[in-house]
């Protein structure tokens, strides 16, 4: 029991903080922090699987997140029939060409021995393939993007419920991770970090500029939700009754009927946003709990022991007959798939897909801060890191506003320094993050909740 007391108290503090936000700021704010905490927790679990279990550095988290988001779009948006008619066939042909290139390259790789000639042939195949693809797809893309560009201008998706995208996102991210892993996993640790960072930038560039697939920087808005809409809730009788029941005390205080009506209306409007966010929080919690159970099981299984052995000494593990390369690839794919789920969850929550907003600071480095601060190798630590760091990230701005007001209270309202500081408040969160990371790395290098290895 003692070993869990740390975990329980840490989580209790975290929950207390979120509830405090509910009382001090607003419940809607507290719940949206909670939702993003849960999403961040999924991301950190993904990164933790790679870094904590296997010691692989993946700085490409942004890329997988974006792919998860793309999955949400491709699954939930209804197909644009016109666009399919004008250019669908050619796009399908291009997809076939790409698959055939892959198969030809694989065939060459298996059939012939390593030589510079082989490299030239592979390069030739790829270049010829790309030229064909450009010739075929060019006009098709032009036509697709011309279909009603203000609202569609892309192929659309499958029109399925958006919840499916959480699984599809995992597959997308896993597939990308397989390719990257095949290319880059042989590199040394810091090379791998740089290579994955750069590859994720390429992924973002593609998502941003291939308008026929993703609408690019024109964004996709109004994705369907898995939970009810606020507007609908406000006119639903059972929901109004529920709100009435909850606020019986406050309502009974008001005697005037008209005033009572108005108060109820306001309460229903407030209640509907809270209810929607509660639904999301419930859905996200289910995902977090399932992942937590699975990852905990994996961590303490023979497989988890093998992964730790590989992480701590891959040569020894190799000598014991464990296939290090294969296991690294497997864990790279699994971790990235988990990040892909988080990406799809985030787009589901936001209801919109904005490729321009994927930036490495927010989606790669911040997640790494979460993993390091929380405690790498420990799933509870990773989740806690996601919660704590996201909370800090959001609340750093109001907190620094408070501090600035405190320290500059001697100055006049219109003092230039004071105004300048207040204008730059959003950037204090970067400072807070950096200092938090540096302090944790210095004084608690294993994180808030360090890894505990059960010895049998």
């Amino acid at each position, binding site marked *: 029991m003692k070993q869990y007391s740390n975990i329980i108290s840490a989580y209790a503090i975290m929950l207390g903080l979120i509830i405090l936000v509910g009382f001090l700021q607003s419940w809607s704010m507290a719940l949206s922090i909670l939702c993003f905490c849960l999403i961040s927790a999924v991301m950190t679990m993904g990164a933790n699987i790679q870094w904590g279990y296997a010691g692989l*550095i993946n700085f490409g988290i942004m890329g997988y997140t974006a792919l998860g988001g793309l999955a949400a779009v491709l699954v939930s948006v209804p197909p644009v029939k016109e666009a399919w008619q004008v250019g669908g066939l050619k796009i399908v042909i291009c997809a076939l060409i790409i698959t055939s290139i892959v198969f030809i390259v694989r065939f060459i790789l298996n059939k012939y021995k390593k030589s510079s000639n082989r*490299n030239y042939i592979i390069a030739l195949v790829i270049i010829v393939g790309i030229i064909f693809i450009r010739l075929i797809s060019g006009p098709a893309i032009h036509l697709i993007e011309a279909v009603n560009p203000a609202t569609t201008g892309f192929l659309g998706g499958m029109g399925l419920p958006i919840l499916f995208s959480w699984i599809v996102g995992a597959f997308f991210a896993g597939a990308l991770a397989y390719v990257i892993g095949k*290319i*880059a996993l042989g*590199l040394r*640790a*810091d*090379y791998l*970090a*740089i*290579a994955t*960072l*750069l*590859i994720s*930038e*390429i992924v973002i*560039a*593609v998502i*941003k*500029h291939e308008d026929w697939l993703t609408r690019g920087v024109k964004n996709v808005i109004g994705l369907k939700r898995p939970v009810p809409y606020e507007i609908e809730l406000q006119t639903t009788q059972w929901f109004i009754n529920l709100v009435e029941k909850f606020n019986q005390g406050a309502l009974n205080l008001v005697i005037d009927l008209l005033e009572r009506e108005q108060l109820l209306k306001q309460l229903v409007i407030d209640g509907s946003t809270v209810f929607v966010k509660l639904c999301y929080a419930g859905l996200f919690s289910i995902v977090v709990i399932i992942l937590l159970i699975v990852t905990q099981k994996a961590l303490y299984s023979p497989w988890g022991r093998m992964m730790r052995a590989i992480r701590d000494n891959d040569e020894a593990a190799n000598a014991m007959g464990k296939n290090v390369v294969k296991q690294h690839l497997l864990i790279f794919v699994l971790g990235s798939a988990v990040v892909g789920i988080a990406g799809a969850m985030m787009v589901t929550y936001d209801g919109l897909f904005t490729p321009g907003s994927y930036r490495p*600071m927010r989606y790669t*480095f911040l997640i*790494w*801060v979460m993993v*390091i601060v929380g405690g790498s190798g420990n799933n509870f630590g990773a989740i806690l890191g996601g919660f704590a760091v996201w909370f800090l990230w959001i609340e750093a701005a109001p907190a620094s506003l408070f501090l600035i007001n405190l320290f500059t209270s001697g100055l006049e309202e219109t003092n230039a320094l004071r105004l300048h*500081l207040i*204008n*730059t408040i959003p*950037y*204090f*969160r*970067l*400072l807070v*993050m*950096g*200092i938090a*990371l*540096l302090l944790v*790395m*210095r004084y608690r*290098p294993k994180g808030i909740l360090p890894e505990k290895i059960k010895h049998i």
Partner: protein
Amino acid sequence: MDFINSIVLLLNYIFVPALSYGSQLALGAIFVSLIYGILRFAYFTAGDLMSFGTMFTILFTWYFQSLGINLGVLPTALLAIPFGVIITILYVLAKDKLVFSYYRTKKSPPVMLAMVSIGTMFVTQAIVRIVIGPFDRRFFDGEKFILKANEFKEMTGLNEGLTIKSTQVITLLVTIIVVSILFWFLNKTKTGKSMRAYSDNEDLALLSGIDPKKVVMITWVIAAILATIGGTLYGLDKSFKPFTYFNNMLPIFAAAIVGGIGNPFGAFLGGYVIAFSEILITYAYKKFFIYILPESLEPDGLLQLLSTDYKFAVSFSILVIVLLFRPSGIFKGKII
């Protein structure tokens, strides 16, 4: 005549811009490479250190401008660079003392140091944004063009103009001066030689009485100088925006690795490799072929290999290819 026109076209749109962009990248890549060689970790603060140095140069430029000091046809920023350099040196040395030295004496693995440099990246980025804000700033003054397109056309009677901005020439000249001093320092002076020895084999270097503290300090000083100069040149040529500088970290890393990380001369060339390939692959060659080919063969399309949106993607793809086939970079040579 058409042939000369086509050459001028390439000069104007590819060669001159790529040369100046490449120089700016090269300065960054050299110091990333040096830090990797001597301190042995990937320094993720690279882009933000450049913006830090540039920011102070800009602040001093504004100060000089308010005093009415300027360099006539040259940008005032050139006068402000030394002051920016001094502050950046103080900053990196303080950072080393407070943050990095602890891990160095503990002999932490390189990955740990790279993570720490992410922490300092957050802090540096925050400082820059808090002091100067996240917006686009132009701080160029003085004569803008050395050669204008119209003048060139009148002078030579060609159809194509050649524009040379003064910032491009300044970039090139400053780079040549700085890089030659640096390589003279690394190859000829005693301190430079001891740095190379330290990078080659730390234990052996320590055994022969090289002072590691001095080597590390000089490395940081060189890094600060190169970062400030490179950043200021980039800002003069284009404009100063913290986010762009952060993004520049990526092609800088690409250049350093392509040139063989830990090898400053390779990194220097790597900068140009990256810059030229980015511009060569994303340039639309239609006009060029119109000049060169007979009329019957004139092309219809833009003849662009990749759209300019994928500029960054090009350098990263090169990096990936290099990593796959020559993990030690194109220019192996001597490892400093």
